[in-house]
């Protein structure tokens, strides 16, 4: 209410004073965890926006990803956060909206350029309010070293059996670590392994929604099977993978010492810069030939408006611009692997990014299974998934036990899953 009033007053003053008073530039600060994108914003996106909108200056102010949530929360509570807030998907931002830190954006025309699925990650459960403008989704799959495949004489696998066969051949041949993945950081095992291949088994959205509805359990075969599959990867990981951090996995692969990298599409730009061999990509292998294909196509990042921003009008101008084809193209092509969520037809220059996005034609998309609703209680399902997936790959917990642990955690607080 107060902010609405302040916004109205601001608008009134801006309208009233068309003279030299408006010459004063408005500076908008964007809070973000994407340190990685600093130069892209500074060199490409911000100049493009400022050229179109003189009078509005943008500052992209990222912090290290591990500190983002804590720092942002403190700044929002203290009233010192920037005007625009980069939104994590689903419950991470829903929480901010519920606390009144993010403004409702339903009246923003730009949102029309996004499908309902795209908006779902930043919309309340009842669909009544949308609070962030979607930016990009990321797709899981496998990136591989084409030279290594040619050298060892293996073909891109399409089924789980073929996949294991390729791993075995790579291991026998011995010049490459078959797969670059570690469990030290834990999230690799949950994200790059379990959520990467899992949708094939729990049938994407169908399985995810059944879990939310309480008609399926984590201990059902379709949820345990993918854990068994990733447990089978253990012999093909690098020596001492238990102490291998995510950055180690990346380096292992880009230095040409590993053949396959279980990936998210976000790796594309970094890998292209660092690897001096040819890169290819293939979707998660089908459980059996002829099965229907499902991929994890996860809404990942969006930008919302700080409800307390004194520059709400200028910020809305920017959010409006985020819905244009111009922004979608600039963003997707500067950051191959982050696929714009807008409905505009976009041409991607990068062949590897095109490979990833082409899977959308033959496969059904789904989001990460623990992202929506299921991670709202204690214990947190997504955090639990990190731990148990790592344990399963390490071989210190059986897939059945891991599934039982997650189910018990869910049953402890989530009504539809109780007994």
């Amino acid at each position, binding site marked *: 209410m107060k902010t609405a009033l302040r916004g109205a007053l601001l608008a009134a003053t801006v309208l009233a004073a068309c003279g030299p008073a408006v010459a004063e530039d408005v500076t908008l600060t964007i809070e973000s965890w*994407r*340190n*990685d994108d600093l130069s892209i914003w500074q060199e490409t996106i911000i100049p493009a926006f400022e050229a179109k909108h003189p009078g509005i200056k943008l500052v992209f102010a990222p912090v*290290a990803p591990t*500190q983002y949530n804590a720092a942002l929360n403190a700044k929002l509570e203290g*009233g*010192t956060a920037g005007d625009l807030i980069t939104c994590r998907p689903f419950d991470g931002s829903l929480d901010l909206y519920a606390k009144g830190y993010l403004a409702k954006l339903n009246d923003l025309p730009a949102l029309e350029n996004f499908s309902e699925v795209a908006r779902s990650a930043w919309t309340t459960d009842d669909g009544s309010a949308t609070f962030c403008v979607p930016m990009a989704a990321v797709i899981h799959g496998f990136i591989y070293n084409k030279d290594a495949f040619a050298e060892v004489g293996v073909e891109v696998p399409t089924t789980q059996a073929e996949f294991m066969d390729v791993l075995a051949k790579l291991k026998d041949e011995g010049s490459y670590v078959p797969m670059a993945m570690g469990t030290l950081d834990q999230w690799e095992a949950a994200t790059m392994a379990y959520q990467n291949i899992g949708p094939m088994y729990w049938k994407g959205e169908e399985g995810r929604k059944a879990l939310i509805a309480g008609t399926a359990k984590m201990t059902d075969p379709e949820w345990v099977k993918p854990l068994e599959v990733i447990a089978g990867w253990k012999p093909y990981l690098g020596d001492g993978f238990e102490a291998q951090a995510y*950055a180690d996995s990346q380096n292992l692969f880009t230095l040409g010492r590993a053949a396959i990298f279980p990936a998210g599409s976000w*790796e594309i730009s*970094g890998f292209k810069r660092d690897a001096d061999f040819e890169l290819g990509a293939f979707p998660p292998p089908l459980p059996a030939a002829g099965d229907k294909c499902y991929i994890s196509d996860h809404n990942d990042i969006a930008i919302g408006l700080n409800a307390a921003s004194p520059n709400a009008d200028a910020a809305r101008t920017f959010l409006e611009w985020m819905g244009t084809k111009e922004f979608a193209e600039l963003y997707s092509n500067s950051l191959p692997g982050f696929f714009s969520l807008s409905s505009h037809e976009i041409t991607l220059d990068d062949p590897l990014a095109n490979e990833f996005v082409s899977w959308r034609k033959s496969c059904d998309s789904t989001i990460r299974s623990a992202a929506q609703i299921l991670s709202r209680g204690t214990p947190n399902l997504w955090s639990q998934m990190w731990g148990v997936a790592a344990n399963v790959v390490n071989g210190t917990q059986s897939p059945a036990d891991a599934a039982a642990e997650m189910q018990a955690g869910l049953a402890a607080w989530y009504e539809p899953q109780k007994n």
Partner: protein
Amino acid sequence: MAFSRARRNLIAELGAHAILLTFTVIALFPVLLVLINSLKTKKAIFRAPLAPPDAETFDLIGYATVLAQGNFPLYFWNSLFVTLGSLFLVLLLGAMAAFALSEYRFPFNRFVALYMALGIMVPIRLGTVGILNLMVATGLVNTHWALILVYTAQGLPLSIFILSEFMAVVSKDLKAAGRIDGLSEYAIFFRLVLPLVRPAMATVAVFTMIPIWNDLWFPLILAPAEETKTLTLGAQVFVGQFVSNWNAILAAMALAIVPVLILYLIFSRQLIRGITAGAVK
């Protein structure tokens, strides 16, 4: 007899050198690894982390990135100003309070001492939101003073705790003599006691300085603006979500060791000199 004693001393000395050298190598090797790798290409860091840079792998890209991105000389100055400012306040105010607590008997003395010690037991970070509200209310956000105040509050409990221990052993006769000479309590503190506890002050300085210099959290929350950014916060820009720029991080960190090492050398000299001077007296 004399000969065997000299020989025993020699053996003891060699043994001491051997042990100290071992610990020195253990302490320095990882630090050296940071320095070596800050001078190499990213690939060379991971291909052969142990190898010193050679013609092929030598690369100043890390340092170049650090100097090109952001305003590192300014960040350096900010870190130094904040660290020294906090240090000054922690030492002065801490010594004053410690003196009052260890010198005078007054009601609630023990209570105040305990109250001041509470701060050692809870990490101040938990009060972040309250602190931020305070700084917003006083308009100190994005100023050096916000940081200096927080670090002073954070450093005081330990400083008072350690300094009271040392002040308790300052000779009573000396102070009594001063009082007989008609010195005021302030003069006794500043002219007689402070010089004597110089070694303890140097110790506290070292303790206080390190966490302040390396702190990431409060600069991030209280003073993230470009003009007040500290070095540690500035270097964070190279820590990415998926890809970190290790060349730049290592270069920034290698540079960040220098000022704090110089400060340490100054304080440790104070420490040793203060003690030896005290012993000679």
